[in-house]
């Protein structure tokens, strides 16, 4: 099963548990920004294991000079309710933003199908998400009224960015479920990514936009071919 459970968040685990919830939990998490979450991110990235020190002994420093190379932390995962809607029949729908990267790869494929994207190998997709600098997601959680409200959790949006953690970042795979578009959710996803990148002083933020969404990104502050800078792609010549 290719479920990506890269983030273990004990305090809010109930939201993402597979079993239906029988309790009423307080899902309204304050976005403190400085929240210290125990994050286990099983990165298979070779460089990471070297960077963080030796695999067994974390007290040894890899770098000789103590004053230099303050390895900046990974962006702290955030999670909070973006919008909460109560329908007349009492059904409560919450849209939850998360940057923890907890994405069920099959849900993602379903979402990609919904927006009409060509299918990509699942294992490659999973690896790409795992090695992205940041993966932002939007989930919709619908709770029926009553004490045994069955929860419906649905992935409705995602965006991710790759980066060298210092200067360059590229935003890939921005998508929002068509039935949730037009609400500013895509804007939120992208702005969140930009914010996280700029706070780390990563100033070259690039993306490759399809023609239909160029205006969408222009409204978010992106400029096409700024100062003649263009992306080129490699094409094998056989």
């Amino acid at each position, binding site marked *: 099963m290719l479920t990506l459970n890269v983030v273990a968040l004990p305090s809010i685990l109930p939201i993402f548990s597979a079993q239906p919830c029988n309790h009423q939990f307080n899902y309204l998490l304050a976005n403190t920004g400085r929240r210290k979450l125990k994050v286990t991110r099983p990165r298979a990235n070779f460089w990471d294991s070297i960077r963080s020190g030796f695999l067994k002994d974390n007290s040894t420093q890899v770098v000789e000079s103590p004053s230099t190379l303050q390895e900046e932390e990974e962006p702290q995962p955030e999670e909070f309710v973006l919008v909460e809607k109560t329908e007349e029949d009492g059904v409560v729908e919450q849209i939850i933003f998360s940057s923890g990267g907890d994405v069920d790869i099959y849900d993602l494929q379903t979402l990609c199908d919904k927006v009409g994207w060509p299918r990509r190998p699942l294992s490659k997709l999973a690896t790409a998400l795992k090695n992205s600098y940041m993966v932002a997601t939007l989930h919709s959680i619908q709770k029926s009224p009553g004490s045994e409200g069955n929860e419906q959790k649905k992935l409705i949006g995602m965006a991710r960015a790759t980066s060298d953690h210092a200067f360059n970042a590229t935003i890939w795979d921005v998508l929002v479920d068509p039935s949730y578009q037009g609400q500013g959710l895509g804007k939120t996803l992208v702005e969140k990514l930009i914010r996280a990148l700029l706070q780390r002083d990563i100033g070259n933020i690039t993306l490759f936009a399809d023609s239909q969404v160029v205006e969408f990104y222009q409204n978010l502050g992106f*400029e096409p071919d700024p100062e003649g800078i263009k992306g080129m792609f490699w094409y094998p010549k056989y």
Partner: protein
Amino acid sequence: MAAAAAPMTIKMKACCGYGGIKAMEIRWATRKENSNEVSTKLKQRIPIFISTNPSHINPQELRDLYGSCNHSCHRFPKMDKMGKLVDPVDIKRLTIALSHSDLLVSVFCNKEDVLASDDDDCGNEREPSKGENPPVLGLGDLLQRVVPLPVVSPSTGMLVGFGRAVSDHGLTASIFDVMVIPSLRGMGIGKMIVKRIIRILTGRDIYDIAALCSANERLFFKACGFGDDIMGSTTMMYTRTLSTHIEGDQMVKCAGRKLLIVPPLSLSSQSLKNAKSSSMKQSGGPSVKRVWT
């Protein structure tokens, strides 16, 4: 000399499991026939050492290479009136970028094969490079005079070329900062660097390889087999600055010469309005609670 133990070398072990591709090797770089007079003073064929081993890179030497190539890590760097970069690359951030790049390619050559040519030296009559040899000759130098073997190594040679790639190991990769010192351009070194990067990435099953090019880099990448996106996508960069978008108090971040506006934290009222209008069409209307400010 330049490659002596510096306090800020990158301590990383190279992974040599590239499936048969050598992590380092000696190649020949040949200069094409040129009618330019200057070319008679430059060597036609020099041995170079190309490596993908990160430990061969000395960050300070690399920073100097960025300077010699007038190349910045920022896409919109501060420049003086002559088009020369004002600030040197921040070495701490460069080291972070290197440690998070999945591929680093470095090219070395013997110091005597490099003509120390800066832009302002053009047109000066120069002695052949041999005459500028340092007085101390190492064993490698002696060997080279007796037996013309292509002896080049990262420890004795000079860093003259570089390139790096960042990837998500699954779907995409981006190539950054490909550079060769001016006096050794036109010899195929840059192409060698890009070809090496592509070979390794495709060996890892990554075929979606992008390179962000300024106008004068486009020809080079075209010659390396790059082209415009066949899907017709538009390259866009975040450039919202104070001058383009004035809106009260703004947090800004410096990126080269641009002061980029950091998107504010609060939800815009626009998105809330849309949320209300697109909600269910029931008589009472649903309640929308804004919970995030």
